């Protein structure tokens, strides 16, 4: 090093300019996001409704009309927006005469790779789940995805016992997935051999959802037994 090296003078940074630029850019970006959100929300809501109705209709073919409700300690209220804390969203399917055909609700639990979501159908008459439809899963192709197609596994859900205790505060028996070939009772789910984690996720999702929903829903079922009963 010698004294002949030029001295580099760093120009002073204008702090105000930095703040002003960031404010302008974030305001511009914020405006853009809000505008596009406003424009796309109706289409997104319509898409979600179509997908949901398609799933419920596949589960309950006789459904002529599907109405969203929330069940909470305050009773059953029409479902609007996201459910409030403690409330459980469910879908009431009415036949063409306006009579309640069945209830559909969603259960979710962590599977092998991601969350497994299932829509299940419930009827008060048999106090049972009469069918399921997988609405979201990213399980291993050829193994975990058998929960969608395996007829033996799906047979578990043709009459899965979810009856309540006499005080209607919880399920009489916990719905649980058992090792393949060891199912004994109506509330047990016979796992798919080789896909036990995914099978257990289905059982856990249904149990967790039914344990929360049915004690809130069943005592108030009369109020929604006919289309328009709530309005």
């Amino acid at each position: 090093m010698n004294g002949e090296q030029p001295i580099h003078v760093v120009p002073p940074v204008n702090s105000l300019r930095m703040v002003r630029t960031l404010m302008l850019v974030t305001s511009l970006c914020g405006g853009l996001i809000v505008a596009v959100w406003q424009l796309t929300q109706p289409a997104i809501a319509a898409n979600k409704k179509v997908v949901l109705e398609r799933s419920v209709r596949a589960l309950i073919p006789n459904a002529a009309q599907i109405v969203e409700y929330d069940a909470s300690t305050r009773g059953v209220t029409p479902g609007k927006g996201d459910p409030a804390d403690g409330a459980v969203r469910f879908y009431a399917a009415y036949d063409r005469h306006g009579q309640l055909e069945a209830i559909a609700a969603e259960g979710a639990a962590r599977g092998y790779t991601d969350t497994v979501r299932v829509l299940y159908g419930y009827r008060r008459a048999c106090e049972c789940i009469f069918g399921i439809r997988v609405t979201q899963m990213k399980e291993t192709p050829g193994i975990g995805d058998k929960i969608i197609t395996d007829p033996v596994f799906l047979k578990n859900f043709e009459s899965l016992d979810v009856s309540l205790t006499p005080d209607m505060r919880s399920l009489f028996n916990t719905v649980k997935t058992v090792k393949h070939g060891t199912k004994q009772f109506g509330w047990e789910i016979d796992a798919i051999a080789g896909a036990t984690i995914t099978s257990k996720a289905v059982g856990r999702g249904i149990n967790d959802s039914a344990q929360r929903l049915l004690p809130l829903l069943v005592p108030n079922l009369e109020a929604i037994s006919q289309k328009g009963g709530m309005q």
Partner: protein
Amino acid sequence: MSSQPLQASNMEQLLEGIWKQNPVFVMALGMCPALAVTVSAFNALGMGLATTFVLICSCTLISMLRRFIPREVRIATYIVIIATFVTLVDYIIQAVSLALYEALGAFIQLIVVNCIILGRAEAHAAKNPPLSAMVNALGMGIGFTIGLFALGSVREILGAGKLFGLSLFGEHFQPWVVMVLPPGGFFVLGLWLLFFAWLAKRKEAQHGA
């Protein structure tokens, strides 16, 4: 990758991303979505187009604002701009196809941290006029989409016996399930990289001859 002279023609700019500096096969950038979402041709195209949209919009806007953005806050500004367009693409995909949205999952939001986009913003858009930035971003986007499609189509054909959901080989075909699993992504990417390396070597040999 920022070595393109300012006076390079638009066609050269466009071809740079599509072929010479293809983000997937030459620069090996954006590997996370390239391996994770390419289980089908449809997913690959969806992710490629979403990334192209974000690339073009963010690079154009950054280029337009390049004289006003102080160097000290440029990264923060670029990330805000990129995140904005990713949010827009997130809403747009939900409005167009919920099935595609579910299939791409968190990888839509992860476009924010796709190194191709910030790399283009910093290396090209911040130093060039909007038209040049837009053309360069378009080339990179097309190149990325081609790369993803090359992976997705091979994986879907071998892993499911289908292309765009249409069965190609009939019921007797036994799918190679491994191709739609994570290792399949590495196998197919490795084979494509091998192919491009062979092409480059052959070209080099021809020039040398």
